[in-house]
């Protein structure tokens, strides 16, 4: 792994050295030279005289391929040649790089393409218009006769690389309201293309935050209290500081920062620390006790907030045939494969931070506040991240703040690179909240839902600020994807209880769709059985107002051969869900027995509007399916009777391995001209429910809790 030396305009040089390789084929053996100084620079792109187009991506690429996707939008409207396109992370700068819906520079909700679509098309089209005008002036031809495609500017018999006109275009006024391409003319968007980050990732050259190797950089690890919410009373660093290579030990708000020559030195120093903690306000309950408290709260207290449509309560109380289900969802850790890491240096009143930042505005503001610097003095270099699943978003004091506190405590004496080890990560809180779900329904004589009630106990995944008053409406951090939001109910109630728990919640892939969607899709299957109706047909009958959900449901049923009997020994289940304005339906087929089964096939149908790159949709669908199965089958964070987290690494917080992956995954993309919507999260939702529906069709007892497989339990 080559060291990445950061020069003054380090982030562009580093990124360009790293990412320029992305434009080469795998056959190329020599590293590329840094790109020449750009001749044409705008907010989202710059063009070099040699025709290299660099796109500034305001969002984080955490492996979901968004940098290639955003670049494709710009390249399409610009008329660039794909193998001359590079991507770097945009600086942290508002309002230039704001998420057009969320309002700050941040990535999440599978909205990167959706919120950037118009903006980047305009950026590419504007640059194209300016280049065409420059060419028209140079060639003395009408501007309307100039076209740009595949990196070449053409008018009649004349053509030249678009780089040739970059400098001249930069001197022209910027036009407004430039017409956009007709999507029927797209040659880049909608096509399979080699992703720009692939060659570097294959060669191990991608510079992740964890790879930062500035001259003189030291390693930083943090000793956290063993229980959530505990604070440091006292510590003795003597033994740690006596070890070779241990440079400093500094108290910071979340624990003790240990700085060493290398990560190994720092870890060794941390292991030698003596610390005492004040646990009077710590969370010392077990997760079993916390769930028991949830049940008591639901049964014994009025909800914190509820919404009603019609009067479901009367029907539910009057009717003797209430169908009811209860589900327990555990705390989940995201475990992105690149450990949480951030590097930083502080000198001369300026701070530079480097990581896969998911919430740049917030990260930058926090750093500035901690250091007492103006926001403009904090520079963020956003590099690709090795996975996130929501973990790298900023919700309260977290690892990136720890690095800044350590820089402050040491007065910027050394550049530092902080890493949370896998153990630190799994035991570190910031989990998908534990959630208790109870669903109840009464059907009318046609099988339609006459009354429906959903009761949820759980922390919102967007943490409420400390001391904030209890919400008056169910928090969106708990309700996104709930049953009555998608299925037709003649009357419904959604009730939510806010629990006091000392475990930090966090956004996790698909936000609250990841429990609402699963509960919904298992429950609706049971309603279908009660109504004596086929599960696909039953869902269709409740989705008359959601034609795009009906569309993917019909597509998946067709592709899975739902109307044909299964081969002997196979069972199947179906699930459908809308998340982030995309629509996904999945069928899971299994063989074996409920105690010993194999997932033979998953068929997935997805409607995400206009597709930027079908390969990305396929890979996200496959990854989401593996991710959703991992959590449903194996994963839970448990705390023992004293509040200690029991899991620590991938041996006891398992992820799906190759032998357990479905034997076949088939993904079908619904052709659509609708506005593009996201694919990073939606396909992770239905698969767990479709699997449970298949297991229950196979004769497994009704599922009531996740994960499905627990150590020592049948």
């Amino acid at each position, binding site marked *: 792994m080559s060291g990445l030396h950061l020069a003054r305009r380090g982030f562009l040089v580093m990124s360009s050295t790293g990412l320029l390789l992305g434009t080469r084929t795998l056959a190329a053996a020599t590293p590329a030279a840094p790109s020449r100084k750009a001749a044409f620079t705008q907010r989202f792109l710059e063009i070099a005289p040699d025709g290299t187009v660099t796109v500034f991506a305001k969002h984080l690429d955490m492996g979901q391929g968004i940098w290639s996707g955003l670049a494709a939008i710009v390249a399409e409207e610009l008329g660039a040649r794909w193998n001359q396109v590079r991507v770097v992370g945009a600086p942290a700068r508002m309002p230039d790089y704001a998420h057009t819906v969320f309002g700050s520079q941040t990535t999440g909700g599978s909205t990167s393409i959706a919120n950037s679509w118009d903006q980047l098309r305009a950026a590419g089209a504007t640059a194209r218009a300016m280049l065409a005008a420059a060419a028209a002036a140079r060639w003395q031809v009408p501007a309307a006769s100039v076209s740009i495609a595949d990196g070449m500017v053409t008018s009649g018999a004349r053509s030249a690389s678009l780089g040739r006109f970059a400098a001249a275009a930069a001197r022209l006024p910027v036009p407004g309201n430039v017409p956009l391409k007709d999507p029927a003319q797209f040659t880049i968007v909608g096509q399979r293309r080699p992703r720009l980050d692939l060659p570097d990732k294959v060669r191990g050259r991608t510079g992740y935050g964890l790879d930062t190797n500035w001259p003189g950089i030291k390693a930083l690890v943090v000793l956290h209290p063993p229980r959530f919410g505990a604070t440091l009373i006292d510590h003795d660093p003597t033994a740690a500081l006596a070890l070779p290579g241990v440079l400093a030990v500094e108290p910071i708000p979340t624990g003790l920062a240990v700085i060493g020559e290398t990560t190994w030195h720092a870890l060794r120093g941390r292991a030698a620390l003596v610390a005492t903690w004040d646990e009077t306000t710590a969370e010392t309950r077990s997760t079993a006790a916390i769930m028991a408290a949830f049940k008591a709260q639901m049964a014994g207290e009025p909800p914190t907030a509820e919404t009603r449509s019609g009067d479901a309560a009367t029907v539910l109380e009057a009717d003797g045939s209430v169908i009811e289900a209860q589900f327990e969802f555990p705390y989940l850790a995201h475990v992105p494969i690149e450990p949480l890491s951030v590097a930083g240096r502080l000198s001369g009143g300026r701070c530079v931070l480097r990581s896969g930042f998911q919430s740049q505005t917030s990260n930058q503001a926090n750093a500035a506040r901690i250091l007492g610097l103006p926001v403009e003095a904090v520079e963020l270099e956003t590099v690709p991240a090795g996975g996130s699943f929501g973990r790298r978003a900023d919700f309260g004091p977290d690892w990136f703040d720890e690095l800044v506190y350590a820089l402050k405590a040491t007065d910027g004496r050394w550049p530092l690179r902080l890493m949370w080890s896998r*153990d*630190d990560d799994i035991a570190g809180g910031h989990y998908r909240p534990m959630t208790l779900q109870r669903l109840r329904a009464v059907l009318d004589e046609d099988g339609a839902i006459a009354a429906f009630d959903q009761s949820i106990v759980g922390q919102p995944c967007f943490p409420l600020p400390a001391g904030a008053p209890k919400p008056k409406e169910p928090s969106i951090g708990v309700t996104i994807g709930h049953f009555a939001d998608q299925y037709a109910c003649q009357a419904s109630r959604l009730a939510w209880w806010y629990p006091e728990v000392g475990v930090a919640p966090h956004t996790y892939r698909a936000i609250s769709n990841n429990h609402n969607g699963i509960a919904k899709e298992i429950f609706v299957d049971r309603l279908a059985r009660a109504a004596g109706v086929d599960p696909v047909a039953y869902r269709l009958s409740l989705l008359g107002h959601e034609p795009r959900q009906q569309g993917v449901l019909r597509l998946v049923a067709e592709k899975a051969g739902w109307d044909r009997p299964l081969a002997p020994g196979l069972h199947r289940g179906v699930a459908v869900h809308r998340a982030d304005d995309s629509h996904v339906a999945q069928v899971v087929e299994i063989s074996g027995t409920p105690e*010993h089964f*194999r997932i033979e096939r998953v068929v997935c149908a997805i409607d995400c509007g206009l597709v930027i790159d079908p390969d990305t949709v396929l890979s996200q669908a496959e990854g989401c399916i593996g991710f959703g199965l991992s959590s449903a089958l194996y994963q839970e964070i448990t705390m023992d009777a004293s509040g200690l987290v029991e899991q*620590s690494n991938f041996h006891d917080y398992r992820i799906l391995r190759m*032998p357990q992956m479905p034997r076949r995954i088939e993904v079908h993309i619904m052709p659509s001209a609708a506005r593009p919507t996201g694919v990073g999260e939606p396909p992770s939702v239905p698969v767990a429910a479709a699997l449970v529906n298949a297991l229950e069709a196979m004769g497994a007892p009704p599922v009531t809790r996740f994960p499905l497989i627990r150590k020592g339990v049948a």
Partner: protein
Amino acid sequence: MIRAGALLLPALLIAGAAIATNAPPERANDLRSPESFATIADPTARSRALFGEMARVIEHPRCLNCHPATREPLQRDLEPHMPPVDMTVQSRAMECQTCHHDANTPTYAGGVASIPGAHGWKLAPASMAWVGKSPRAICEALKDPARNGKRDLAAIHEHMAQDHLVGWAWHPGGTLAPVPGTQARFGALVQAWIDSGAACPLD
């Protein structure tokens, strides 16, 4: 395949312990001495009882983990080895010794305090698969030259009493529970079992 069923194996450990005879050891982690079995007059019965004491080592997870029923080693308390290892597919691709070196390696990780190690770390051959077998079946397999690596009884004693990989079980490192007693005591029990006719348990 996804195994969702309960683990059957801990039940076998309990069955093995039930064979141990009347007088309990001084401490739960001690092995009884061969002399303490002298009260059993009949040599065959004494032999079976001695094997029962040997079984407290043989059927302990430190030993059973590398004598699995399939070609997948186990770890800790007969749990799936993580990262997953299947020697039917990996025997040429990845040596055990890639991660398991000549000595126990302490880590700075919270949940895995040490990576076990001893020279020549490897899985027992398939013919020596013991997990899921009754004590009688293990005993018979142990004595069968076709399955025990062509060993006679003297060679079996030497293996149990002297082999360093067997000896690792008494010094597993980290937070792993060692097998009871000492290798010297275990070797003495094996010798006494051989001397009394090397009889196998009835079940």
